[in-house]
């Protein structure tokens, strides 16, 4: 594995390797000295062309805990706003000696361009590109599911037979796509639930069950995991649903729907949450919610990914 661009290209063995190394990283994150010398002397560049708090901070914490130096680059206030191309930005970073690049970009495929162009000779980690993929989010979701299900015996286990319902803005969600490919590789079954306007064209060819009715799906599948997606108002450039109240009533996880779930069903959300829209405060703060575990596990997963890509012979 040279780059991490998508979960679609990950084999089951590669995915399990990342999850198992993340188990080791998680024990480091529970220690008093939360630091490993594995990437000492290496430089990680966080190249963020799109706003992000938790992903950037998570990658920054992960790189620092591996003793790498971190350079944060955000497009706002940089030469990009003066019209610099991705190529020139990449070559500038290469000249500064970046050993690994974490990139978030509003254009789907930008990380792949960076990986294949030869502008920079460093491992590329996709931290979210357009509506394409967000592989580390899917990995941390799978890691969170595995830990909740198997606890200390998680190592080496896949997610065979686990049923996951993903609800909300599938159309714009790179998280949904990355989760679909990864969970499917690990043996889980994914159902998508959304208004018909928020299901992408071509989704019928995906290995997922597609439904427009949340209550029926929850009743019929009795899922192990319900993952609520954020309504991405910044990408809502058309009238996908009449109004927020109607969306919350039909597709939101409110307290009444929460009560119909099995007591051990996990409620996941990649954050940031729109409380009262796709998820009620009661659901977000319940014991079934894994939202904060997901954040903590994100650092372990990103440490595992950076370690596996950046240590070893270059």
């Amino acid at each position, binding site marked *: 594995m040279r780059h991490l661009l998508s979960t679609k290209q990950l084999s089951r063995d590669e995915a399990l*390797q990342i999850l*198992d*190394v993340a*188990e*080791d990283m998680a*024990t480091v994150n529970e*220690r*008093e*000295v939360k*630091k*490993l*010398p*594995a990437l000492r002397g290496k430089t990680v560049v966080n190249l963020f062309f799109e706003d992000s708090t938790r992903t950037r901070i998570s990658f920054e914490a992960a790189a620092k805990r*591996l003793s790498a130096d971190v350079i944060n680059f955000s497009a706002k206030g940089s030469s990009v706003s003066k019209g610099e191309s991705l190529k020139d930005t990449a070559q500038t970073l290469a000249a500064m000696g970046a050993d690994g690049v974490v990139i978030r970009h509003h254009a789907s495929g930008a990380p792949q361009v960076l990986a294949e162009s030869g502008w920079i000779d460093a491992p590329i980690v996709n931290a979210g590109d357009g509506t394409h993929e967000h592989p580390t989010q899917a990995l941390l979701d799978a890691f969170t599911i595995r830990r909740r299900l198997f606890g200390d015996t998680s*190592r080496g286990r896949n997610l065979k037979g686990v049923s996951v319902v993903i609800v909300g803005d599938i159309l714009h969600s790179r998280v949904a796509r990355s989760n679909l490919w990864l969970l499917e590789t690990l043996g889980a079954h994914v159902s998508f639930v959304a208004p018909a306007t928020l299901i992408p064209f071509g989704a019928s060819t995906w290995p997922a069950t597609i439904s427009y009715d949340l209550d029926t799906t929850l009743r019929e599948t009795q899922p192990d995991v319900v993952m609520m997606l954020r309504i991405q108002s910044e990408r809502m450039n058309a009238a996908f649903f009449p109004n927020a109240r109607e969306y919350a009533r039909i597709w939101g996880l409110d307290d009444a729907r929460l009560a119909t779930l099995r007591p051990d069903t996990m409620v996941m959300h990649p954050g940031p949450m729109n409380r009262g829209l796709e998820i009620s405060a009661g659901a977000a703060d319940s014991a079934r919610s894994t939202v904060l575990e997901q954040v903590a596990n994100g650092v372990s997963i990103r440490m595992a990914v950076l*370690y*596996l890509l950046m*240590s*070893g*012979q*270059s």
Partner: protein
Amino acid sequence: MARTVLSQADIARALTRISHEILESNRGAGGLVILGVPTRGVFLARRIAEIIQRIEPDAPASLVGALDATMYRDDLARNVTRTPQPTQIPAGGVDGKTVVLVDDVLYSGRTIRAALDALSDIGRPKVVRLAVLVDRGHRELPIRADFVGKNLPTSTDERINVRLSEVDDVEEVSIEGPGETGSAEPDGGTR
């Protein structure tokens, strides 16, 4: 052909002697923590802990653990990426304890150097000792073992294979001359 230098019975005797020596130098099993260095050091550590618990009935129940040093190695950038192994510290931690590190073969000393660094990030033991099944010489760092199963003078182009019943189909320590290719697997079994 690889020459066997320690048989199953030799290994058992060496571990029994090492266990007694550990208890003698520590004056009992009080404050003792045995940490194996993956992969095969972990199995040796478990066997030593079992023997100690048999000799000293009042030895602590959680005595043994594993200490992975992969992330602390000085050759990470020179080799293909290594997958780390689990680190598992006994319930009482290592602070103020007598920690005995256990490995199968002591060679350059670099693994033990890495393990000492890993240990210092976990806590501050009172003393750290080192037990190895085989000391084959050729140290590259000022490190020595306190408890040795067998000293094996070797040349650097020979290979020492440690096979243990927990992971291999046979149990023995053998020595292989240059150019010979045994059934040696690429990971920790061969040095």
